[in-house]
């Protein structure tokens, strides 16, 4: 097993470009806007795999929190392709731990396991194939050598995760046969793929930066959402489109090619104009933080708010002048408890609270704090205990999960011992130096904002009991408090 890894790492002469780190083909694509389209396409192909589709539908937070998910994925890929082998190994171990916690059954009762080797090879295969296809579609096909090198990079990526890349064919020639066979035989019209194609883009929540301008966001989304869906469908392999019964609309082929071509033309922009990481960082930057860029973000957001206020004010009045609170949307009728349920607790956005929701919280926290074993397991265990406590207290109809109605009926009785335990474990995990208080750096790691305690309490650090108290009252009562709010609600 390990022989394969060592060969890919060491068996090359020094003058060839490295498989990882700057200079690799992956790095060349990283800031390429075409890559955004290609990633969406790859994600659909992944989700169309029944195993991955089931895992996504059950565990993933990408519907409710797509921007957070995107940021985490991007960071993870950066680390995986870092030039430093230690960073790579650490990230691979983290990813493996993360995926080892995901297994279950799909809606038809077939088991899935996020550690399944063949399935993981497919993820890497879709990424590679989408990168090749994106170059083809934008009229700049890769030559054979580049393609071979890129394939070696992606196999090395799989090897870094799995120990070896045995599940992917050795040579590029065999890869195409493998890819076509999976597309023909294994892909299905899964729910996850449908969600990505038809639901995600239509309901994409605004990233933190644009949160204050819902009107503007909704207007833009109404145009861009269906377009992205159509472009992605048109770029999928023909056999899959046929099997999944995806619509063939006249013009979408041209539209798709045009989009890829236009995205490819940005290569003529000056260097550094498009930096994927900066763009994502900026989008997920919530105004009010202490980042120097947050000031810009705040100003930008204020402008945006004003623009959308003006837009609303000058838009013609609807025919109905009927006064009175009539058009209360679904959001208006919600009490604070239900609001909290949807914004914080229901991480997967399926309208129910069950284990994947709490696991997603544990995952987000351990990602933020960059936890290693055994702290990570401790945090998951604490969340699991809390889930059992919640289930006992709230699941009145016994269907194994908690609905918003069940939740809001029982809110006051939620601060049980298991939740306090979660707070304590989280405190210990955040308090990296173990001195019994959370200092400024530790605070920033958890909340991503500046450290400021109420000066009235005179403490310059965040003590254990204060932290536990704040966390428990936030998680149980839905008391909105500024630092905790964005912890789980960031879209």
């Amino acid at each position, binding site marked *: 097993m390990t022989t394969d890894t060592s060969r890919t790492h060491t068996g090359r002469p020094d003058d060839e470009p490295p498989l990882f780190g700057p200079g690799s083909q992956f790095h060349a694509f990283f800031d390429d806007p075409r890559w955004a389209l290609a990633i969406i396409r790859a994600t659909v192909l992944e989700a169309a795999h029944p195993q991955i589709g089931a895992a996504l539908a059950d565990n993933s937070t990408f519907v409710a929190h797509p921007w957070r998910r995107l940021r985490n994925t991007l960071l993870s890929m950066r680390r995986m392709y870092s030039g430093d082998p230690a960073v790579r190994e650490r990230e691979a171990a983290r990813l493996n731990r993360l995926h080892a916690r995901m297994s279950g059954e799909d809606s038809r009762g077939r088991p899935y396991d996020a550690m399944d080797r063949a399935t993981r090879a497919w993820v890497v295969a879709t990424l590679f194939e989408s990168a090749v296809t994106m170059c083809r579609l934008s009229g700049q096909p890769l030559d054979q050598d580049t393609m071979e090198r890129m394939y070696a990079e992606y196999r090395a990526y799989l090897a870094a995760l799995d120990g070896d890349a045995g599940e992917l064919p050795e040579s590029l020639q065999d890869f195409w046969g493998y890819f076509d066979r999976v597309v023909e035989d294994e892909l299905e019209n899964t729910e996850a793929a449908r969600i990505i194609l038809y639901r995600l883009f239509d309901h994409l929540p605004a990233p933190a930066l644009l949160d204050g301008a819902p009107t503007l966001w909704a207007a833009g989304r109404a145009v861009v959402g269906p377009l992205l869906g159509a472009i992605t469908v048109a770029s999928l392999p023909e056999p899959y489109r046929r099997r999944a019964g995806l619509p063939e609309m006249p013009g979408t082929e041209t539209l798709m090619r045009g989009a890829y071509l236009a995205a490819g033309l940005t290569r003529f922009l000056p260097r550094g104009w498009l930096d994927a990481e900066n763009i994502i960082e900026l989008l997920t930057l919530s105004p009010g933080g202490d980042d120097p860029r947050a000031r810009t973000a705040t100003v930008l957001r*204020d402008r945006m*708010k*004003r623009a959308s*206020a*003006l837009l*609303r*004010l*000058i838009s013609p*009045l609807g025919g109905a*002048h009927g*006064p*009175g*609170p009539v*058009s*209360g949307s679904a959001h*208006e009728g919600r009490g604070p408890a239900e609001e909290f349920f949807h914004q914080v607790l229901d991480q997967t956005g399926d309208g129910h609270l069950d284990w994947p929701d709490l696991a997603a919280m544990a995952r987000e926290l351990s990602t933020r704090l960059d936890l290693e074993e055994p702290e990570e397991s401790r945090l998951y265990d604490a969340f699991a205990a809390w889930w059992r406590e919640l289930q006992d207290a709230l699941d009145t109809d016994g269907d194994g999960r908690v609905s918003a109605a069940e939740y809001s009926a029982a809110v006051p009785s939620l601060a049980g011992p298991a939740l306090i335990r979660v707070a304590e474990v989280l405190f210990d995990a955040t308090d990296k130096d173990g001195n019994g208080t959370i200092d400024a750096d530790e605070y920033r790691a958890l909340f991503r904002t500046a450290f400021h305690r109420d000066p009235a309490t005179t403490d310059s650090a965040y003590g254990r009991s204060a932290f536990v108290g704040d966390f428990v009252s936030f998680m149980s009562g839905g008391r909105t408090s500024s630092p905790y709010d964005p912890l789980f609600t960031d879209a």
Partner: protein
Amino acid sequence: MDGNGRWAQRRSLPRTAGHRAAEATVIEIIETARSAGVEWLTLYAFSTENWNRPGTEVDYLMGLVRRVVRKHAPLLLARGVRCRFLGVTDPRIPRELAQDFDDLTTLTDGNRGMTLTVAFDHGGRRDIVEAARSLIRSGRSADEVTEHLFAQHLPYPDTPDVDLVIRTSGEQRISNFMLWKVAYAEWTFPEVLWPDFRAPDFLACLHTYRRRDRRFGSLPPWTNGDSR
């Protein structure tokens, strides 16, 4: 802004016509005040007691205010007027109207020319009660409370004390208007009805105010023949 109803009755028009005619005055007065150098202008549009008017009239007023706000929003923005709304807590206010108020506030928030406060669903006593609540919640001890501290808890604490109140149509009552802030205000009571109130009338009121001798409860700075 009194006298819309009487203005309409004198012309044998429905009361609503009087409210409609008030729109022109509102815009003219805002413009006049701005060019006369007034920095803080407050219009008393709707009091907490006005909810007692007939339902149809209230409904009409809500619709009218909404149209006026939307119609003049770009103008107010362009003229550098910062708009905000005092009161606006009653659940009977249509949600769309409250949204428009919010939008106009957001839109003109950066303006520094003149601050226009529209008292809508406003009651001076309610503001004082709210301030008292907020003060108690802040947990200050009774001895600490001063006039200054109390004023900090009133809505829009940055608003200075009122200098001049103009009440049209000859009515001479306070009618629950900004009770805390009018403590030393000068009052004028022009006979003219609000829809007929025009720029010259407003400037005349300003002129009267300038000639007033504001002593704020103390003696005048000097008095003829008094050696002090």
